[in-house]
């Protein structure tokens, strides 16, 4: 392993750990503000939704195939299908479709 690569991996570790431990170790008081509590409640949904759309359409090299995969993921999730199963079914579907479309 060369030094540059090792350095890159090390900064990735630091950048992954810093934002996780700072609040957990240094913020012990309960947040009283209703606004801040509500903000924290909505934030994870906003992050994941923002990460997923529109990126999911470009996750494979065919937008139509990705869109079909997205639709199936939405339907399966709507009916509370297990998250691992959703992922595997969609990968299989997208894989199959890439030969058809």
């Amino acid at each position, binding site marked *: 392993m060369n030094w540059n690569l090792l350095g890159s991996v090390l900064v*990735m570790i630091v950048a992954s750990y810093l934002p996780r431990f700072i609040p957990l170790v240094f913020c012990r008081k309960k947040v009283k503000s209703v606004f801040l509590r509500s903000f924290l409640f909505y934030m994870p949904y906003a992050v994941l939704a923002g990460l997923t759309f529109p990126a999911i359409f470009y*996750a494979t090299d065919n937008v139509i195939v990705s869109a079909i995969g997205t639709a199936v993921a939405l339907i399966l999730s709507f009916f509370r299908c297990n998250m691992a199963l959703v992922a595997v079914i969609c990968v299989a579907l997208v894989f199959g479709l890439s030969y058809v479309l």
Partner: protein
Amino acid sequence: MKGKEYGKGVLDGIPVALAYLAVSFTFGLSAANFGLSPLVATLISATNLTSAGQFAGINLIAVSASVVEIFFAVLIINARYLLMSLSLTQYLPEKTSVVKRLLMSFFVTDEIFAITNAKAEKLTFAYFMGVATLPYFAWAIGTLCGSLITSILPVTLQNAMNIALYCMFIAIILPPAKKSLPVAVCIGVAVGLSCLFYYTPYLKEISMGIRIIIVSVVTSAVLALIFPVDKKNQNKKEAN
């Protein structure tokens, strides 16, 4: 008592672990395609334990980005953990020790957060670590397998696997949205804003990490103003 909480956590972590196997397998494939050895890919997964940040990190390593650039890109993508960790502190017993908190922080991911946050009132160190256990090993093992197996898999399958991460995200956010109108609105606003940033000239020049932060902060702030969550409401939601 503690063993029981831990055991309950391990069970709740199983779906996350299975999803992680699939997604980390994809990460291993990408890492190998970028020329990283299976050892380095697995080392990254075992020490970072983060999906989007790792994918961005190896993309940058592949284009020989500077260490400083890698640091800030990964930091910005992972900044959402600041908010998740802060949210966890609200439910964690105040007397939980610093050592336990340092250990827990390592395992804060979108999915582990989603599972443990839903248990809000009953969140303890033992339960949290239980949830984290299987997903952690699944993430490392999946990466190792993915990076070893690359040459055998057809490119079309590797390509198809890129969608796994996003499907997992959808599976996390959609069921709560079905039960709570504000959560559904929140997701709608975030998707709309994210697309706006993605497709609008000038705005689309903004990097992915910064885009995610702007979208999530604006969306959560707007929703918090329109649909404030009071204690009673939140309990009702979490009871589901």
